[in-house]
């Protein structure tokens, strides 16, 4: 029966992201964009969790669990 259930996951930038247990936003971003967190300070990256911005100061205390929708964005060429 376990095989028929989908593995627990979040949706990160529109793609399934396997997650067994909740992880802090900081860890998720560090895994996703390795160079973007220097000395614990995010560089040029912002995060929305379920359509609400997670302020930088709350990255450690906010966790992303299975079922969450996460957007991780950065500045690119445009406009």
């Amino acid at each position: 029966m376990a095989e028929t259930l989908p593995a627990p996951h979040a949706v990160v930038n529109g793609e399934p992201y396997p997650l067994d247990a909740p992880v802090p936003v900081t860890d998720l971003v560090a895994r996703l964009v390795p160079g973007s967190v220097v000395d614990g300070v995010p560089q040029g990256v912002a995060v929305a969790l379920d359509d609400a911005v997670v302020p930088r100061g709350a990255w450690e205390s906010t966790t992303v669990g299975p079922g969450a929708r996460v957007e991780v964005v950065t500045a690119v060429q445009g406009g």
Partner: protein
Amino acid sequence: MSGVLTIAGVELGSRLVMGTGGAPSLLALEDALVASGTELTTVAMRRVARPTPGAAAGDTSMWGLLDRLGIRALPNTAGCFSVREAVLTAQLAREACGTDWVKLEVIADDVTLLPEPLGLVEAAEELVRDGFTVLPYCGDDPIVARRLEDVGCAAVMPLGAPIGSGLGILNPRNIEAIAAAASVPVILDAGIGTASDAALAMELGCDGVLLATAVTRAVDPVQMARAMRLAVEAGHLAVGAGRIPRRERALASSSPEGRLDLAL
């Protein structure tokens, strides 16, 4: 020196605002930005790319580029079709870029790419209330521009022609009317094709010009960036100099007095 452009109390040494879309590479973009003399440049907010082992930082270096050149970043909400999307994108940009300045775009559809005026005013009002310095990209309707100013925008940025069209300024009288009525800076945004368009924008009373495609997709972007810099400066100087009135008939520039009286 063409003077400074002051937006929300911040003095910028150039009246040319640059966009960064369409450049073939960051290196080409860097040279063009330097040649343009700009001190304010737009960036878009997009999902970070999935990490690929051994790859360079990729587009995150856009951030580093502006930082290195000492250019203030103006995040935009390009690609947003609703108020909600635009507001969330602006909030993400504030976090990512560490600035509360935003070039607000609420686009009606992906064919015309024209601003959707009702959503634009609504989003502008919400962002102003949230502490943003809002520079809205709008149509050339003087009444929409007035509403945007009423809700507290720090500038208004009417289009000359559709984004990327290079058609110049299709409705110069409206641009002139917007510039004459506004008490915030007016920056002509979109439609510029070549240097004379930028000079005309300034002559119509605009305080600055924002352009991207005209430079980034020019055959020689660096040379076009320099042309735009000079054109904006020339147009601004011409306004300050006070142009001659237009006349129906010719007016001799040489005095008839002392003219030769030849029996020919």
